[in-house]
């Protein structure tokens, strides 16, 4: 059997040979630059100067919202587009199991998420370093943040990897919908609804006084709320970072197991 890497290469070709993908990557680089330029010239409303680290965090929130949206778009199209283009019929009649083909698609998706995360990370860091320098307001909680660019890079990295993990779970959800529903639009729509309504759902579940709510996806998606000694959204039921990552891992496994099951069994008709 031929090299599995070539399958991933194929999936990459189908992602990066499309204009839309490059538009996404362009927006991802431009947005932090625009936001920082605006703040650089406009300044803050109280007249104080914005600092580099603050702006890195602001930009990163925007940038990772884009990373999530773009990953959802790629994930939703991955399987569904092959069906809508009709190319699935030529893709599946090759000497590869359906498991291998789905896995190659998923790996290409993870690579895309990794690429966009790194682009967002580096853009947010270097753009603001260039605009504002390694400056940070004196922070009583984390005073060592004034210690320079290296520390800022590490602190920003913390936000980046928590976003990466959460987006991986959401992208897996989109990927599952893509494989199960074979409808690109529906998969994108439902996934983005989850992303944007996540906080609303979280507060809804927080109103329920039951021990099982700590296993709800929405209460575990934002890993920052378990960092630096925080114990999560539920006041009387503290959760650890390890616990939250474990819950997310369980959802990750479930979503991808369903994708695989559906994709392997599905008859390709019409």
């Amino acid at each position: 059997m031929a090299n599995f890497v070539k399958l991933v290469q194929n999936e990459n070709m189908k992602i990066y040979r499309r204009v839309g993908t490059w538009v996404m990557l362009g927006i991802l680089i431009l947005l932090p630059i625009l936001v920082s330029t605006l703040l650089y010239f406009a300044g803050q409303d109280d007249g104080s100067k914005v600092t580099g680290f603050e702006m890195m965090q602001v930009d990163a929130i925007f940038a990772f919202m884009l990373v999530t949206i773009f990953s959802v778009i790629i994930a939703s199209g991955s399987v569904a587009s092959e069906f809508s283009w009709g190319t699935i019929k030529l893709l599946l009649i090759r000497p590869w199991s359906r498991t291998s083909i789905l896995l190659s698609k998923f790996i290409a998706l993870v690579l895309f998420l990794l690429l966009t995360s790194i682009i967002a990370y580096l853009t947010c860091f270097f753009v603001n370093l260039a605009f504002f320098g390694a400056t940070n307001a004196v922070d009583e909680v984390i005073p060592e943040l004034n210690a320079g660019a290296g520390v800022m890079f590490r602190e920003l990295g913390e936000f980046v990897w928590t976003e990466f993990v959460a987006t991986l779970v959401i992208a897996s959800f989109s990927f599952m919908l893509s494989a199960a529903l074979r409808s690109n639009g529906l998969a994108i729509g439902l996934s983005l609804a989850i992303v944007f309504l996540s906080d609303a759902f979280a507060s809804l579940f927080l109103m329920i006084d039951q021990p099982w709510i700590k296993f709800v996806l929405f209460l575990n998606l934002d890993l920052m709320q378990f960092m630096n000694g925080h114990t999560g959204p539920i006041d009387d039921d503290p959760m650890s970072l390890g616990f939250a990552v474990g819950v997310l891992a369980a959802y990750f496994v479930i979503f991808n197991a369903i994708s695989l099951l559906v994709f392997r069994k599905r008859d390709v008709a019409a």
Partner: protein
Amino acid sequence: MSLAPVVRLDNVTKVIGKRTIIDRVSFDVYPGEVFGFLGPNGSGKTTTIRMMVGLMALTSGDIQIEGHSVKTDFPKAIVHVGAIVENPEMYKFLTGYQNLLHYARMNPAVTKERIQEVIELVGLQDRIHDKVKKYSLGMRQRLGVAQAMMHRPKLLVLDEPTNGLDPAGIRELRDYLRKIAQDESVAVLVSSHLLSEMELMCDRVAILQKGQIIDVRSIRGDDAAVHTQADNEVLFEVDHPDAALGVLEGSYGARIADGLLSIKADRSSVAATNRRLVEAGINVYGIRVKTKTLEDQFLEMTGSEHIG
């Protein structure tokens, strides 16, 4: 046909819900033959083909390609198959070459040289680096043939290959299929509901109706037999059909059909009839045997009301 079949269908059955779409279909296709798979729309041709290439699962029965079951040994079975299932859908945002490269990467047997070879084979060398969205339907069809032939399959499966092709394209495809069947001993399985076309293309046809094979027959080599049958309808174009009818005095079931004199006769009787007519002073302008086309036979078998 003493050779081992390339593909063997053994009691293939497909049940969707409570409906039996395909009911115990069995047939073999041998190297070097063009095998037609014929049936009205909705008879199950495409479903059977999709089961052969692993796009749909079998409910029961088995399909073996070069001895490997598509159920248990799919990659080893499918590696011998090249296929176009309905229209050859390609990635429109990729060039023709990138499309071929995509499928080539999935098969260890295909080299860069082989890709070039098939591009020239289907005559796309001038346009291969254009995006597929700029291709005409005929060019897409050729690209479809190229991806199907690239890995030198032992079985070529084409589902409704002439859909959307112009007459020249159909003829080209027909000649090409016959050529590779003969020269490279490829078994070709073609499905269609266009009977006249299948008649020109195929060595054998299986006729499918409501999910069951109702007949498998050879097409080629039968012509001589047809012409010597006693009950062939023979048409005489004459100047006075009514007078001619009188001359024959009702022998050979003579009658007038569409202004022509029609009789049922074998070869020697045709000559004898002609002599009688000429001797009676009737001018004979033409004689032709009305052969039953595949279409007539097909309609006879399936009943015309079932044609979709």
